[in-house]
């Protein structure tokens, strides 16, 4: 053994501290589509938070003398709808609603999905039961499940959030379960067991943080789906009720005036499209950025 010769401790200085989030962000903004997506998302957040400052008019105040003004009219640059309500103001307040629904539905869905996923991935005995329940939820087509839940709970925006979150649970649970199955075989989990750590401690402090990458991607993508589904449900009359300035409801109300005032459906349509597009590309880019195996130089 050369042990006797190596009497002096040879310890390399640890590498410079690097923030993981910063590294991921750097990789993210290399993707041009993701930058556009991020700008749209930030714009939506700013509009939603400061809606009263951006909106020139009350979004629900009717003035029939100003009905169906085309975009470009003085004082109403995006025009007005059939009740004379300012389209821009309704759009801005609509951003608030879609953001609320998106965040609310995704947060609730994640809470349920992560809990089920962690339990079924970690405890083999619960796995069968939880996964069959998840299969049951999967068996319903998404919108149908949401409609069913709203039919039970009644029509309101909050119930839309609940319906969409329940619809997100099975997918999320499957994703989390898969990650847990691979993480729990890691040696550092065994190390924690040999220290005598409780299951709760292992699940929350050691398994969950190492499952975050797919969860973050799922949450971003699911935001787009949630916003789109809210619009669909509102269009069908199951979500936001008039006169709430919800984008889907605005399209629904504008259908009758499609030929005379197309801006009533085109403007909220474009808004939905932009936001959904933004969340999708950012989700895609995040998936690439979080995967260290991807070479973004090429």
């Amino acid at each position, binding site marked *: 053994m050369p*042990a006797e010769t190596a009497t002096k401790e040879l310890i390399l200085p*640890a*590498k410079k501290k690097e923030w993981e989030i910063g590294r991921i962000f750097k990789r993210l903004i290399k993707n041009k589509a993701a930058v556009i997506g991020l700008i749209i998302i930030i714009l939506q957040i700013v509009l939603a938070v400061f809606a009263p400052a951006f909106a020139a008019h009350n979004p629900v105040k009717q003035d029939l003398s100003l009905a169906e003004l085309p975009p470009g009219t003085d004082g109403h640059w995006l025009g007005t709808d059939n009740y004379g309500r300012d389209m821009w103001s309704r759009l801005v307040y609509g951003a608030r609603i879609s953001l609320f629904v998106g965040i609310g539905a995704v947060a609730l869905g994640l809470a349920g999905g992560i809990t089920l996923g962690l339990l079924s991935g970690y405890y083999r005995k619960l796995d069968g039961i939880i996964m069959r329940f998840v299969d049951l939820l999967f068996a319903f087509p998404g919108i149908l499940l949401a409609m069913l839940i709203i039919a039970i709970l009644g029509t309101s925006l909050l119930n839309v959030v609940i319906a969409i979150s329940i619809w997100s649970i099975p997918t999320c649970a499957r994703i989390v379960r898969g990650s847990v199955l691979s993480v729990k075989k890691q040696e550092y989990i065994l190390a924690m067991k040999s220290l005598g750590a409780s299951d709760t401690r292992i699940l929350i402090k050691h398994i969950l943080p190492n499952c975050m990458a797919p969860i973050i991607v799922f949450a971003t993508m699911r935001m787009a789906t949630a916003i789109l589904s809210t619009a669909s449900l509102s269009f069908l009359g199951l979500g936001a009720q008039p006169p709430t300035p919800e984008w889907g409801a605005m399209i629904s109300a504008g259908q009758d005036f499609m030929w005379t005032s197309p801006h009533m459906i085109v403007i909220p349509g474009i808004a939905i499209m932009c936001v959904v597009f933004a969340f999708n590309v950012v989700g895609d880019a995040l998936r690439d950025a979080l995967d260290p195996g991807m070479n973004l130089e090429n």
Partner: protein
Amino acid sequence: MSTVNVSHQVLYSLKNVKKHYPIKGGIFKTVKNHVKAVDGISLDIYKGETLGVVGESGCGKSTLGRTILGLESATEGEMVFKGENISTKSQRQLKPFKREMQMIFQDPYASLNPKQQIGQAIEEALIIHTDLSSAERREKVVQLLKEVGLKEEHYERYPHEFSGGQRQRIGIARAIAINPSFIVCDEPVSALDVSVQAQVIMLLEDLQKKHGLTYLFVSHDLGVVRHLCDRVLVMYLGQMVELAPVERLYENPLHPYTEALISAIPRPVVGQRRERIRLKGDLPSPADPPAGCAFHTRCPLATELCRAERPEWREVEEGHFAACHYR
């Protein structure tokens, strides 16, 4: 070598410990067979000694380490730690014993949570087993970091910022944080460079002297085992083949399998060649070990008796045990 500290006080006593994994198959997942990873180990581990466990891959040496720590429940047998039989205890009842027994892992890259600062990783043991305040814990962690040759400023770093040897030191600090008396070292240096190996081994020796630790040192590196261990257990297909004080095992191996292992050690002396015993054939499956002596399929001395009868485990000379009909 740490012979000085070795007492004759038994710390951990194993009696016929077995760990069998069921192989399930068919539509109804019925148990078809068992993988006999550890198949009847009986031995005493003395306080303060370093007991080496050697054998080729798949002989059950790592499983033995995990089983005696209670990380795997033993299928059969009795495990008596400091006078208490722990083989029948539940995970909850085992917690005070887990404080006494720790493990150092083979792969320093896989044994640390990549999302946790290393200071917190070491602190974890203190949170679980002590009532120290967070300031006291921090102080203790810093002291542990220094003890294994790291610095205070490493506390907030993440595992990926360290080299393999440094990570192994972190793993060691985590294992000794709660002052255990018994540590299973599962091939702690086999993933490291030779120069780093030497440093880590010296660290293990220092800590043993300082804290009076008892090691179970699982390894396939016979050179390291000779340097570090007091006694050596040779395993083959989950069974005990030979157990002897280290020098006696290397100078006078009794079992043909041990002989073959020892003849495979590279020798740095020019001109002096020792006959290399080459074993024929592959390691048989531990699900279906050969009848009689498990080694008879590859043994140069095998006879009818070996094929028919499992050799008895006997003390050939004082402190030197072997399981062979002909030695």
